[in-house]
């Protein structure tokens, strides 16, 4: 795993998962992102780091937000960027994932940003693509969404400065969430004090403790004294597959409300990867309230993706 993401010098070549990366690498990503995050304020908001490079956003699953921030990040690095929505085209004609990749490779691209509905798709592409190409995982099945996790870490550092004293709680569908898996791994690597997960048992994986978290089936207990509250989006199909009875009962038991927020630290920040289901996982007034940093997460998404794109491309030493 580690070998696949890192080159011989131990630098990032692909960015597929947080699993296996150390604190130095994650910190470097955050530091580089910080240097980019001041850019939009400048008059010229482009840097020529990836001039002449071609980046292909390969989205086998639809996602406007993630795709847009990747496009914006690539553009600000002066790369040529091409977004392909494959969800409804090639694969439905029976073309294999590998054939799709080979075809695009033949067009001399330098990087793939991939989102796919199957866990491990990013690894598979990284293993089977030409050696000069970097692969960035923009979400694979229920496995990983490492750029989302890093923008979350960036946001936490922005507000909390350090990680080691933090109690972090993640609330929602942990079982099906690639975001949660990557967040948990990143928080563990960066060394927070405690990570809690809150959900009914139907939405927690078996052996969830093995991920390095403390599980709660009760939101009040989970929120007690927390400094960072990370909400997850609840997918509607969980209701039809006998994992939850209905949205109302979910909100009643696991929704983040003003009342429940009182048991968290007074300066706790509230995060959400979006899009938000208002009144299902979070009360509207909190989502828009003073403790919410949800829009800041979106803003940070561009800087983090610029950092990851430039670091993976630089690791080959062919970027000036």
């Amino acid at each position, binding site marked *: 795993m580690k070998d696949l993401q890192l080159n011989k010098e131990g630098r990032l070549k692909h960015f597929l998962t947080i699993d296996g990366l150390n604190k130095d690498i994650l910190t470097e990503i955050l530091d580089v992102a910080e240097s980019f995050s001041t850019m939009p304020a400048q008059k010229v908001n482009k840097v020529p780091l990836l001039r002449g490079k071609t980046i292909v956003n390969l989205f086998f699953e639809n996602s406007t937000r993630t795709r847009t921030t990747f496009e914006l990040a690539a553009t600000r690095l002066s790369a040529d960027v091409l977004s392909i929505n494959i969800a409804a085209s090639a694969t439905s004609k029976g073309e294999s994932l590998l054939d799709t990749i080979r075809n695009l490779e033949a067009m001399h691209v330098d990087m793939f940003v991939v989102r*796919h509905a199957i866990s491990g798709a990013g690894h598979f592409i990284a293993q089977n693509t030409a050696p000069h190409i970097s692969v960035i995982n923009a979400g694979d099945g229920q496995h990983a969404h490492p750029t989302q996790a890093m923008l979350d870490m960036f946001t936490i550092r922005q507000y909390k400065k350090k990680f080691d004293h933090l109690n972090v709680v993640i609330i929602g569908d942990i079982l099906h969430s690639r975001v949660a898996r990557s967040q948990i791994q990143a928080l563990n690597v960066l060394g927070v004090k405690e990570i809690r997960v809150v959900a009914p048992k139907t939405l927690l994986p078996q052996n969830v403790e093995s991920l390095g978290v403390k599980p709660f089936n009760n939101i009040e207990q989970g929120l007690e004294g927390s400094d960072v509250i990370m909400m997850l989006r609840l997918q509607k199909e969980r209701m039809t597959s006998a994992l939850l009875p209905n949205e109302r009962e979910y909100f009643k038991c696991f929704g983040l409300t003003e009342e429940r927020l009182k048991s968290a630290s007074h300066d706790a920040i509230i995060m959400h990867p979006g899009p938000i289901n208002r009144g299902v996982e979070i009360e509207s007034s909190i989502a828009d309230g003073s403790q919410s940093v949800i829009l800041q997460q979106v803003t940070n998404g561009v800087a983090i993706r610029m950092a990851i794109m430039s670091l993976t491309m630089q690791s080959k030493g062919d970027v000036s």
Partner: protein
Amino acid sequence: MTKIHITNGHIIDPANNIDQLGAVYVAEGKILSLNEQPSGFTADIVLDATNNIVCPGFIDLSARLRDPGQSYKGTIQSETIAAASAGITSLCLPPDTSPVIDSQAVVELINDKSQRAGYSQVYPIGALTHQLAGIELSSMAALKEAGCIAVSNAMAPFSSLLVLRRAMEYASSHNLLVMYHPDEASLSNNGCAHEGIFSARYGLPGIPSASEAVAVAQCIELAELTGCRLHFSQISCKGAAIKIQQAQKYGLAVSADVSIHQLHLTENDIEPFNSVYHVLPPLRTVKDKQHLRDSLAKGTIGAICSDHQPHDVDAKLGAFPETEPGISSLETLLPLMLRLVKDNEITLSQGISTLTQNPAKILGIQRGALTSGFSADICIFDPTLKWDVNDDNWKSSGQNTPFWGKTLEGRVMHTVQAGKVVYSL
């Protein structure tokens, strides 16, 4: 026919309680005698077995040959050559071929092809339901007449427990062994890995051990209800083994086998997203593995099978959940059995039993022993010879094994099947 004299070997024949240096005499395709040279016997072939073990040829309770229907993955010819090189002289072919083994014509086709190949005794297992659809009964009497040794629904689910019950009753009426692959499909829910630490970490759809244990418990009740002779194929978890042990203690005619890789690999051994580890039932926990080993030593699980499933390269080229499950495993069967002996889990004689007399007993066939008059199926192997799993040594069309590139200990020197030398190193 050829007369064969095997000399200087260490004969281990658990069925006849033989464990000594000696000679084996073969003529007319049968075992003639052990140790005492029959009068007037002149050997056409002498096989020197110095420093080697001589034992009955192995009987594999489950090996996919991919023929008929998927010759790009393997053929009866290619896979029985691989079997012969692994000391396997008889093997059972599950019914999920294409077309399915649910008609006499398919059985005859398989028999014809395997006889022409001439490397192994291939026993077709008939489909328990029509087209393996789990809805209507197959023509079991006709399948038996054509030569099916047992009936099974392979990995395919039943539409209801009522259909399973009736299939067991009907099979029992024709005195057919039912081989059952326990998996409650609604619980395994299209998973691709054991529901545990590995699936939690990598976000892979999980298959709980309960999906197997629940199916075992249900089927044991139906075995009692129907009086059916029942064999559980490829047990993978502790819960299932415990239920089988209880049923045996209670006096039910229930047997079980385990695939060789479940005795060695667990979820901890899976290299992330490496599809050669994608197998069903999935690789379980260390506790499960140890319990399976213990159950083998105690005899609850009587037989080890290869659960051979060769694949073409494309079948394993994809993201883990999208690849086809299965391991190519004929050729690792013996060395991995010997590793259990080395690990002090079982004795060598026990290990040989699990590959010879025990599967013969489960199938009710006169094989798996060096008894005079039995078919001369003999494996001669060097228990300490090391070999590399690579292109030069591998015979199966499927190279999909987690042991590829590894060095294994224990290698077959000669295989005699029905009195014919079908393999020599």
